[in-house]
């Protein structure tokens, strides 16, 4: 998938990728998103489910084997990590720009 098509990441995707630096299944992702953002970001179940499908398709995350066949476990891929870093770098530049100008 073309890099420029993925960047910038939406807040939903950025947060999911951050939570998936460690493997997690669907509901655990929802909880981590909640904890990570101190309750600021509340992601709804249907939104997360669709986002996970798209992220797998774009190869930003991948499935890992789990004991429970009814709960798929995902983890960020190397490519996903690369994209996450690239977007973080983009935002860092934006922030330093803002710090200078404001």
């Amino acid at each position, binding site marked *: 998938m073309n890099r420029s098509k993925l960047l910038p990441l939406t807040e*939903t995707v950025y947060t999911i990728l951050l939570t998936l630096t460690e493997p997690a299944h*669907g509901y655990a992702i*929802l909880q981590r998103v909640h904890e990570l953002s101190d309750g600021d970001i509340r992601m*709804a*179940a*249907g*939104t997360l489910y669709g986002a996970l499908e798209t992220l797998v398709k774009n190869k930003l995350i991948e499935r890992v084997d789990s004991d429970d*066949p*009814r*709960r798929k476990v995902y983890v960020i891929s190397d490519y996903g990590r690369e994209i996450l870093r690239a977007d973080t770098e983009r935002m860092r530049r934006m922030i330093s720009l803002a710090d200078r100008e404001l």
Partner: protein
Amino acid sequence: MSKNTLTKLRAFLDLDAEEAWINRMASDGWLITKGGPIYRFARTEPGHHVIRLDYRKHDRRANREEYLQFMADSGWRHLAGKSKQYFESTQPEIGSELFSDQESRSQRYLRMIKAFGAILLWFLYFTWLTGRGAGYSVSTLLNPRDFFLTPGLWQMQGFEFQRHFYFELPFAMLRGLGAAMWPIGAVIVGILIVRIALLRRASNQTTDA
């Protein structure tokens, strides 16, 4: 003894309108147990229920089970539905929405369009197939005489013509129906797809407002 189940015939394309209706039924004491067009409801405690709609088809049973498990983990009890899915929130005080952004909410319509598109392709395929297999097609509908196969029928006169004409009429009508069924179906499905696309656009525009 009062009835404990209720059957209602309805057809919805608009997910928001359907959701509103299903929730009204629930607050009147009727909880959905089967999706449309022939809806079934069972008695429930009248009052506040939070029921939300998703649209998803799963090609594999394992994927569907995983989806339902994830929804259950997240506080959504599956009430009914194989492609249009009806969920009731088991913890409405924590989260009462299935989608937290407008984009994922309107993507339901995109999945509907894809599902209806697959049906449309089948109808078009059968339209082509009937035409090829039986030697008549959509254009024959404009010239129904071709549905009669009796040799020399249209040159016959008087009683002989009537005898052959009325004998073959039911067969000709069946042939006509066979030829008309698929293109008519394709047109209807095509109209539905356009209406869903308009709903999707309307639901996308609410974000910008």
